[in-house]
């Protein structure tokens, strides 16, 4: 299992204008791992995630996804690989103008042929599959609701239901709970972690709330100023380390 890397980054750098988001970052994520990425804001966490799913390409160095260099991938291979990567953002996870049922069934877009996808917008296809996914996130009764009628936590759960339909091999969650309160955030992280365990998936979560680390992750990677600052087991994190990592942000982090 350990010999099967899902992501390999080698000295990857990415800058936006004059600002370096990532500087010579190297790391490997293996199949089936559950990894949390932490670090202060501006450390390059979101950029890292966008590199991993092939939306951005590094300026130098390489990003390998299932042993393919994302920079040299053709459109069709990229599409095939993207099906295997599920992404959860902190916001913009749903299309607000489409009903929950379409937002959930969207998980099938990588598999469905275009005519079926278009027809599904008029007459939802594989409805039972959407029902089952929503049942797992306890939102079965919201099948025909508009996303704008749901609370923030419910919207994130609908996005999770889409991931259940998509059945990706890897789930990347970019601060999925930063806009929720701690209790709802814990629920979402629990769901993500349970999903990953049940399906034997790789899970990468970018976290801002450190209380949610316990019990759900096998490895923690701390980023600072665009490179790896520390890497290890979650229980090895201690106060001096976090203070060094977060600097001024540290006090704010534990204020609430």
């Amino acid at each position: 299992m350990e010999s099967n890397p899902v992501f390999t980054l080698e000295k990857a750098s990415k800058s936006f204008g004059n600002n370096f988001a990532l500087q010579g970052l190297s790391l490997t994520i293996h199949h089936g791992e559950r990894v949390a990425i932490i670090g202060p804001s501006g450390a390059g966490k979101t950029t890292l995630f966008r590199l991993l799913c092939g939306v951005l390409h590094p300026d130098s160095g390489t990003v390998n996804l299932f042993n393919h260099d994302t920079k040299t991938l053709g459109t069709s291979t990229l599409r095939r690989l993207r099906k295997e990567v599920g992404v959860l953002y902190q916001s913009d996870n749903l299309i607000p103008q489409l009903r929950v049922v379409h937002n959930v069934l969207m998980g099938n877009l990588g598999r469905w042929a275009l005519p079926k996808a278009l027809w599904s917008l008029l007459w939802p296809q594989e409805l039972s599959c959407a029902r089952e996914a929503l049942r797992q996130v306890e939102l079965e009764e919201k099948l025909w609701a508009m996303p704008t009628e749901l609370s923030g936590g419910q919207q994130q759960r609908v996005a999770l239901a889409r991931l259940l339909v998509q059945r990706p091999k890897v789930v990347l969650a970019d601060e999925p709970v930063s806009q929720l309160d701690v209790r709802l955030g814990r629920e979402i992280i629990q769901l993500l972690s349970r999903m990953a365990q049940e399906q034997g998936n790789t899970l990468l979560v970018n976290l801002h709330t450190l209380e949610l680390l316990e019990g759900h992750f096998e490895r923690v990677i701390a980023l600072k100023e665009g490179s790896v600052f520390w890497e290890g087991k979650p229980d090895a994190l201690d106060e001096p380390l976090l203070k060094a990592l977060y600097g001024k942000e540290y006090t704010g982090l534990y204020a609430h």
Partner: protein
Amino acid sequence: MHTKRPWGAWAAIVVVAVLLVGALTAVSWDISVLRDSAQRSMAFGRMGAWLLAFASPELDHAFLQHCWALTLQTLSAALLATFLAIIAALVLAMGSSKAVSVGHDKQGVLGRWASRFTCSLSRLIQDVLRGVPDFVWAVILVALIGLGPLTGALALALSMTGILAKVYSELWDSVAPKRYEQVRILGSGRLGILAYGIMPLAARSVQSFTLVQKTMSYCGGKSGATTLRWASWPLRLGGHCGSWVGETTPHQANNRAIFSPPPRNFFLAKRGNI
């Protein structure tokens, strides 16, 4: 690096002001009609006569029936035109929208070339459709399929397609790519991204603009039909009373009719001719 005060907006204001002054001085504005009291009273007299003519509408049963039939004709032509234009504009907009035809993912040399070409070609077609006025389309179509509501509908549909395709593609391109990245990331193709991401996100503005355009097409249907009638009147009459056509150009005939109030039964008589 944001220490310098930006002057861009002021530069734009100055440019607009210069253009406005230039436009005002480039043309000689003739308002002598309003200055001269004799001409002014004539002008107001004409206006009053028009308004008076409106005050006593023709409510004759035959005329009303005729109007009703023409209204139905106009409505159905406008509805058909709108329907055809929306379908054609959606297809054309897919070509001319950069977010759809070019997309955000890297392509090979051939693919890049093909998609750029599609985009430019669609934009050219859309500009031609928009640039040619609807009555010119009508004249061309009359030559092709003859007079009738269908001609009007098709002429309207052609120019509407140009306008709608332009607006649809601009609205689609203005949706922030970050908002539909969630659909892109699912491994969907560009048309899938359009149907599940871009189109729903732009739906509000697309809908309201289409409704405005539909209203305009109903008015356009009316004026388009009138244009057709005016254009065709001398043509039709040409056979019967060539002397009249020889005496006045349609343009002069138009002016005469506009400046003096219509005689009673004017519209009924004329429409009867067509």
